[in-house]
């Protein structure tokens, strides 16, 4: 692979790296809080994917340039695409909601079982089932 291809798409490499880190934490860790953190990192990677695709080389912030003067100068202005940012604002809110529901569940699991480790919870359940 050519180096300039690698460098010019650096945003995707960052996104893929973060995504895999988050996914790995999610799968490999047994602690429920760590799972929520992994999920968060995973989702953040997607936010960055969206935000970086709104960027246009040489684009200005999407605020109308000199709306009254108009003419040729205004027509040539290149704007960045604001839509992905708006979309991801929604997705960030969704991410916060998911995290808070996840943490709230973790609190109640801790109250019910006295632990947040997945393998201990399954051990407790297995013992209870064997006792029945």
């Amino acid at each position, binding site marked *: 692979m050519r180096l300039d291809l690698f460098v010019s798409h650096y945003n995707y490499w960052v996104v893929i790296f973060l995504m895999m880190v988050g996914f790995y934490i999610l799968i490999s860790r047994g602690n429920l809080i760590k799972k929520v953190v992994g999920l968060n990192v*995973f989702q953040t990677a*997607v936010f960055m994917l969206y935000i970086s695709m709104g960027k246009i080389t040489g684009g200005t912030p999407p605020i109308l340039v000199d709306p009254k003067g108009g003419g040729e100068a205004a027509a040539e202005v290149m704007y960045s695409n604001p839509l992905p940012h708006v979309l991801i604002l929604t997705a960030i809110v*969704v991410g916060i909601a998911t995290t808070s529901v*996840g943490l709230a*569940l973790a609190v109640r*699991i801790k109250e019910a*079982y006295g632990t947040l480790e997945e393998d201990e*919870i399954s051990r407790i359940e297995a013992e209870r089932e064997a006792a029945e």
Partner: protein
Amino acid sequence: MSTHLPVLQVVVPLLAAPVCALIRNARAAAVIAVLASWATLAIALSLLGDVMSAGVISYALGDWVPPIGIEYRVDIVNAWVLVIVSTIASAVAPYMITSVEDEVERRRIPLFYAAYLLCLCGLLGITVTGDVFNVFVFLEISSLSAYALIAMGTRRRALTAAFRYLVMGSVGATFIVIGIGLLYVMTGSLNMADLAVLLPEVWDSRTVKVAYGFLGVGFCLKLALFPLHLWLPNAYAFAPSAVTAFMASTATKVAVYMLLRFFLTIFGAPFSFGVMALDRVLLPLALVAIVSMSLVAIFQVDVKRLLAYSSVAQIGYMVLGLSFASVTGLTATLLHLFNHALMKGALFMAMGCVVYRIGSVHIDAMAGLGKRMPWTMAAFVLGGLSLVGVPLTVGFVSKWFLILGALERGWWPVAVIVLLASVLALVYVWRVVEAAYFRPYEGDEGVGVEAPWRLLVPTWALVGANLYFGINAVRTAQVAERAAEVLMTGVGP
């Protein structure tokens, strides 16, 4: 008024939810939930009628013209799914009043109804919208409220089940967002009809194929296709009974709808079946799901878990219909969406009646129940017969079309597997029947504990629908067939 029906479909439950949360009165919240559910059914039926006679309805949200603004687009396919979801909601909502009082802490009941209405709003929103990002937003509304609903189950394992569903569901939803983002990069549009026009130009690009993959995995997680079904059995087994009845008959159905909508309307049947070979990927997964999950269901001792595994197998039937890549196969899929919602709704509601009286759905606790709760168990038997696919029930109608579809493709081994799996279904339904009718009750003789009529009436309403649409399937089959044609031909006029 009637021009605003598409948006009212979502707005009614969305506004009813905070009202329920604010009034803090269990009875009043219940009444609001029931009325809102019935209102959604009235709107859905009226939309289906309009679409059948006048064609596609397009509604520009806030008067922003599509494809820039968000469009709500109702064609015969999603009008059909709207009717399925709101029918189940209308039957389950009155059932909830009594069932939830028994299973959920009193001070949490108004919040329970708020979460239920949000979940309903999300499911209807996914179905009605014509904007792909809007799908994601509604998907998360329905999923987040579903996690909360499942966590309200009486046993503590409901919490771990909800957590597991949260993790897997969020991963699925995030995969769907990635797919939507990649589609946006390639086309610059989020409108479904617009995407369907723009996508064929960029079919060859790897980005579109990657988007297809991400979307596929995301949907299959949400619809619990084997082997991505791991969240489902515990979530259904430990949720409050009314929630299980509602979720089992709606949530996975809407996920199947999303799969059909994205892969057939947006990407188009030629791309899905021609380029991506979707049929050849789904066929083996569906068959394995049908056989293995039916086998697993046979060995369950908790009847709610047994029915949950049976649900995963039934989802296999729906996906199997899609994998035939024909109008007949899709008709079977769309019919089974409706039919399976009716039968699983009835079965889980019957189990809810058992929980209400006995407090357990362990198969040993049900010994002799046929005499003690005759109406409840009769409802279970009829629902079970429908699950097996006995003639005169809806289950037979879906299996009939599935087998027709298989034979049309010349895949007779598939037809044989479908029939064999029906025998497996007979075995697991029989285990419950055997316990209830042929094992003696070891307690005080003559103690009838029949469930109250407030639970029995909604249950029997669904059982009645099972029989009615099993005997008179012309109407449902017509709608499903027309919807299947719309899906196969792509965007309608």
